[in-house]
Structures are given as C-alpha cells and as structure tokens.
C-alpha cells in the first residue's frame, strides 16, 4: 500500500535523525567530561548515563519513525472508502508495530560502555596522593576528587618545594584520562549507531508487512 519511493524517503529521513541524535548524545556526554566534577562520580555517571540516554533516544526515534510511516499510511487511505478506514482502525498498526519493536526479542539494547583505560590511570593518580599528603596534610583526600579544589590549594602550596610540579603532573594526568574517555565514548556511539540503524530498518520492514496484510 505504501509506495517504494515513500519508504526510501522515510529511510533517508530517519537516518538523518539518527545521526543528529547521536551527535547530541556525544556533545552532552563530552560536556560533562569537560566539567570539574568528582572524577569517580564522573566515571560511574558516564558509564550508566550514556547507555540510558541511548535507550531513551531509541524510543524517541522509534516514535519519530512510526510518525513518518503512519503519516504516509493516513495519506494513502484518507480518500478511501469507510470500510478500508475501518480495517485500518481495527488493525491498530502503530500499537502493534511498537509492541513488536519494544518486545523482549526485538528491542534495541545498548551495549555496555567500557571506559577501559580508567582503572590504570586512576591507580596512578592515587600514587600521586601520598606526595600531596606530605605537602598539604589533611586536605589530601580532597585533591583526588577534584582538580578545582587542587587549584584552590595552590597558593598554600607555593612555598613548598616540588609541589607545583606534582600539581602540574596531576592535572595533565586528569586531562589525559578525560581525553581517553571521550575517545571511548566516541567508539561506543559508533558501534551502537550501527545497531540502532539496523533496528530501525527492521521496524520499517515489520510495518510494511503489517500494511500488506490489511
């Protein structure tokens, strides 16, 4: 019932939407990575937040795709006889296809996000801590969680030999870690983009089949 050209147009549109949404996810996650948050919190947050965000985006993309498909279908049947309309009403295609797409066997499940390099670098960061402990006493625990707090401690440390070097080294390590995380996220999104695309394509096929059965 749906013309081939229309389906191809929908496939193009949803691919554009998919690209734009993954760009949004990437920029949102990078926004957090760039900020001065507790590093341990940040690591856990990115690991859980990114897949969750992808899952939500998948649901929104599914609704968007069904909107495109249903608009096309309604256009085709708008001037048709009441009996045709009634058969479409009864088939309730949107709900049926949606239930199929979100069903246990067909649903999109994002893969697990691994931030592979973090353990090693965080361990190394801990090695810096004893040095700082000597330099700044009780406040050492604070530096491991935030490079901002560290900045605030700099004036107090300036008289201590070698402390400026330690802080610089620490900051560089944090920045390096963050760069690696960004790369991890990028790779992760690339993999999931392919999965999402194939999932959305399968939804188009299912919709097409349902319409053909009318």
């Amino acid at each position, binding site marked *: 019932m749906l013309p081939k050209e229309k389906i191809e147009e929908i496939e193009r549109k949803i691919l554009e*939407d998919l690209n734009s*949404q993954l760009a*949004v996810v990437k920029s*949102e996650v990078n*926004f*957090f990575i760039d*900020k*001065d*948050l*507790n590093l341990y*919190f*940040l690591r856990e*947050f990115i690991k859980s*937040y990114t897949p*969750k*965000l992808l899952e*939500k985006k998948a649901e*929104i*993309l599914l*609704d*968007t795709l*069904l*909107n495109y498909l*249903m*608009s096309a279908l*309604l256009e085709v049947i*708008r001037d048709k006889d*009441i009996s045709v*309309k*009634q058969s*479409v*009403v009864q088939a309730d295609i*949107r709900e049926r296809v949606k239930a199929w797409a979100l069903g246990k066997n067909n649903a999109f499940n994002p893969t697990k996000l691994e931030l592979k390099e973090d353990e090693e670098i965080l361990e190394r960061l801990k090695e810096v801590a004893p040095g700082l402990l000597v330099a700044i006493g*009780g*406040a050492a625990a*604070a530096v491991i*969680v*935030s490079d*901002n*707090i560290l900045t*605030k401690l700099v004036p107090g440390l300036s008289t201590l030999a070698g402390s400026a070097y330690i802080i610089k080294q620490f900051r560089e390590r944090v920045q390096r870690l963050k760069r690696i995380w960004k790369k991890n996220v990028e790779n992760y999104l690339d993999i999931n983009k392919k999965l999402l695309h194939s999932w959305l394509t399968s939804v188009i096929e299912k919709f097409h089949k349902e319409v053909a059965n009318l």
Partner: protein
Amino acid sequence: MEKKIGFHEYKIFVTELVNIYDSYLSVRGDYNDGINISLLDKKIKNIVDNVFYVAIAGEVKAGKSTFINSLLREEILPADVLQATSSIIEVFYSKRPFLKITYASGRVEEIEEESKKIFKERLKEVAAIPDEYRDIPTSLIDYWLLDHGEIPEVNDEFIRYLEEKSNLDNLSSQVDKIRSYLQKRNLDNITTRIELGYPFRVGLENIRFLDMPGVNAVGGVYDIAFSYLDMSNAILFIHPIKPVESESFKNFVSTIIPKKNKDMVFLVLTHAGVYLEEKDRLLNEARRIYANLIPPNRIFTVDSILKLIHEDLMRGKKLEDIKKDKAKRKWVAFVLDLADELGMPPEKAFLEFSGFKELLPALENFLIEAPILELRNIAQTIHTGYEELERMLNEHLSLLLVRQKDLERFEEEVKQRIDGYKRLRAEAYFILEEAEINFKGLNSPFEKALQEFKSKYQEFIINSRNIEELRKHYRDAEDELDEIIGKSLSTISSFFRERLKVLGESLNKEYKVTIPKVDFAILEESTKKKLKEKEERDALGRAWSFLLPWRWLKLKELFKFKKESASTLEKKLLQELKGAAITQISNVLDKIRDEIFKALDYYKGQVRQILKEREAQIERLKLEIKTAEALELEILQTEKKLTMIQREKERLNRFLENLNVT
C-alpha cells in the same frame, strides 16, 4: 470599576459555590456529561479547606514578632528577646489554645488550654538566645548539629567556617563560649517546629503565619526555612525603614528564593512612627532602589507599636494603662499630640499612622486572587457540565417525541445515528493518529522543550557557585518543568477540542450525531496532579514537597563526608550535589516524558470510550420496549429536568457575574 474583596466576601462566595455544586450533583445523577466528578469533588474540598500561608521573613531584630503580634491583634509572641530558634514558629487560629513544640529527636511537647501569658513564657524559653550566648552564631551551630547529629570538634577550621557563614569576626576569641554552648545542645533540645494555635479574633481563621528564623546578613536561609517559603502564598520581608537600603533583602529576592516566589514578596518597612515626617520620602526611595526586584505597590511602611496601641484602645484599655508599657509610652504622647492637631479621635489616629490600613487590604486581596480564579474555574466547569447535560437530554427528548408519534421514523433516526457514530469512530482515528504525530517523536514541541530545558539546567547546575545557588536552580528547574507540563497538556487538550469540534460539525447535519463532551480541562488538571502526587502529602506536608528530594540528595552526600572538616565539607558537598542533581533531573525528565505519553493515551482512550458509550446508548434505546404511559412519563421527567437545568444555569450565571466584578 473593580471592587476589592476581602476574606469575608470570599467566604460568602465559597458557601454559595458549595450550594451550587450540591444542586449540580443531584441534577446530574448518573449521566455522563464528561465531567470528572471525583476531581471536582477534590477541588471543592480544597477550596473549603483552603489555608493561606503568610511567611514573615527578615533579619534578626527587624521587628518580626512585634509585626506578627500587630497582625494577630494579640501580643502573644515574645518580642523583647533575640529569637534564636532554628525552627519556624507557626501561628494560626484554633478554637482550643495550644502550643506544640517538636524537637529534632522527635520528642513532642504540648501545652494545652493555657493562658496567653504561659504560652508567651514558654516560647521565650525555647526560642530566645540566652544572654550569655548573644555574641556567637547559635542558630548556625544548631544547624550543624541538625545536619550531622554529633558535636563537631571546635578547631580553627570550624571557627573559620562559622565566621564565613555568619559574617561575624573574631569568633576565635569565643572558642570557650562555643564549646560551652555545644555542651548544652543536643537533638533533644533543638526545636524543629513550633505550632501555636490560639482563638484569635475573627478574620484569621484561614491564615497560618510563619515566623521565619532571621535571614543572615546576605539574605540566606536554611533548607527548612526555604521549603516553608516555597509553600507560602505571600512572603512579607520585614526591614527597619532606616537605613532603607538592605543588602540582605536584595540578595534574598534576587539570588536566594526561587523565581516563582518573587511574585509573592512584600517589603514591609517597620518603625515608620519614628520617622513619620520622612516616611513618604523613604518609601519613595525604597520604591526607586528596589524597582527591579518588587513592584511599587508591594512596598509598605508600618509601625507595629502604633497598631498595637490602636488594638489596646479598641479593646477599651485606658490610655493611662497603655502608658505603663515602656515600649508604648512615648508613642502615646506623640500620636495624641498629632491627633489633637488634626482633630482626629485617638483610636483612628493610631491606626492611620500605623500604616496597616493600607497593608492589610492589599495583603488580603493578594491572597485571595488565586482562590477566586479557582472558584471561577469550578463554576465554569459546572456550567460546561450543565450545557452537555442539556444537549444530551434534548437529543434524548427529541427521539422520545418521534417515537411517541411515529415508530417507523424513530427506527430510521436511530439507525441513522448508529451509522453516524460508526463513521465518527473511523474519522476520529485520524485525529488520534495525528495527535501521536504532533506530540511524540523528535519533532514534537514537547520533546524540543524537554531538550532545551535539560541543556539549560545542566549548565546552571554545573556552574552553581555555592549550595544556595544550586538549591535555587534545582527549585527553579522544578517550577519550569511544571510550566512545560502545563503548556504541553493544554496544547494537547486544545488540539483534541478543536479537531473533534470540526469533525462533529461536519457529521452533525448528515447523521444528527454530535461529538460527546470530554472535559479536557479536568483531564489536564488530573494529569498535572498525578505527576505531582508522588510528592504530596497532607496539607502541611506540602511544605516538604520540595525539600524531600533535596533533603535526600543532601543527606546522602553529607553521609559520605561525615568525618570531614567544616570548610572542605561544603566545597566537596557542592560538587557531589551537582552530580546528584544532574542525575535526579535526568531521571525526572524520563518520568515526565512517560507520564505525558500516558496522558496522551488516556486522552485517546477517553475519546474512544465516550464514542463507544454513546453508540451503545442509542442501540439500547432502539431495543427498549416501552408502553405509551411509560414513554409519556419519561418525556415529562426529561422536560422537568431540562427546566431545572435552565434554572440552575441562571443561578450559576449570576454567581459568575458577581465574581467577575471583583
């Protein structure tokens, strides 16, 4: 011209509306006019039980207690002491006098049926700072104990923390005093809530005054106080008239309280009697200084002592006796001179110069503005219900009349209507699908609004400089989300309303069917309520609706740093709170999206359901076997009901007209 109304007139309107509602329920019976009765019931109940919360804020020693006493027309709060309590004192009308004090440990102390003097004495004991501790920040120390549940080590870091937060210098010379104070304090003697119920004179039955702990020099308030401000219907910030410029007020309005609360702040400049000649100039100066923060008609100058003297005189107290009160003596002589000069009776002069004659009507009017709007909405909902009932009954009556005259024509008409409803259901499917297309997916305005909201508040939260700023952003985010929900639901409602109307009109001529009424306004309300319900408890519990998630976030994070020193704690807590707030907002957004979609499904379900019901009704009518007598009786009953509806509609129109001139 608009007539200003007060609590008295408002109560008359409420009583009238309750009567109108009762009649509506009896006329309506079991008919489904599309109005959600259980929700309307709740609205009526809320209006009847409505309590107005008026928060009195201001710096310590600004004259808050004397001001509240003058509003209450009773000198019941101790005014001659430095209030030290970390809790809010709630004062309200109660037939049975009582004083209830809740402590941080959970212990509750209640004094019942005692005299005003005894209440005042007990309040003085629990709320006043003992003289020897006047120069240390006792409230701040109490808050520390409340947050941590254990006594801190009084070291340099703790002292620095207290100095920074209280703006007091040289606390290092008070270490022994701080230690001695700490030794006396524990969760069993720190109050968290003080409630005072008293049979005040008429007019205050629906108001709860909240005497807030003093704001600090930079306008900051503690979380519990913040939460009470959040639930208030009006916030009166008390500040001495001279010097008129107040940093704490500026900061309080511009950076401490959420956006929503800014529209309910009044600035009350006290001690106006002392500067009677300069009063107008100072008022104008205040209006100029605060022009960006508060509209000029919400700044007032008052003198609480003059109002109290006026109350004494109204109660028949002699001037000689009033003069015995040191705080009042000089004012009696001063105002009497002025009254003589102006040829005014003394009691009138005291009220005139007190400034309360201007403040009180303005406050009453402000407080009932929102409930009046609610009365109007309820009345309009009932009106809509009557119109739908009238339409349904007229349709029914016309079919009964046809049946009485010509059975064959009746069957034809019924068949025509059944076909019409079938057609209606098929066409309605297009509208329901269009709704999905408009309101779900990437291109929907709702999704765009959520995305914008998320980016905006992620940025605000991450860039917050301190916990108070973060708390404000967090609260503003909640309010803005409410706005997004409201706007989205109202767009969905108007979409259905307009599209169904057009469809109904197009099929009406051909099939004589009309689209049944679906009360989208009520649907909107119930969905909004549902989204908020998880945070709501009893009427007073609303105070905690904001505090609950915030408190949870804070406690969870505080726990991690329990052993940290005071100065590093706040920095680390801020960082942790930012993370928790971001996660919380993201979770809430997901929930809101799900709920809005559920609401959309519910709307669709309602439309389908009502169309189905109407079709079934017509089918039933066709199958019903009726004797001529039964038919006649039914016709008579329907006509009678229609006359009653007409009468009630007229009554409702009169009510709405009266309400509209207010």
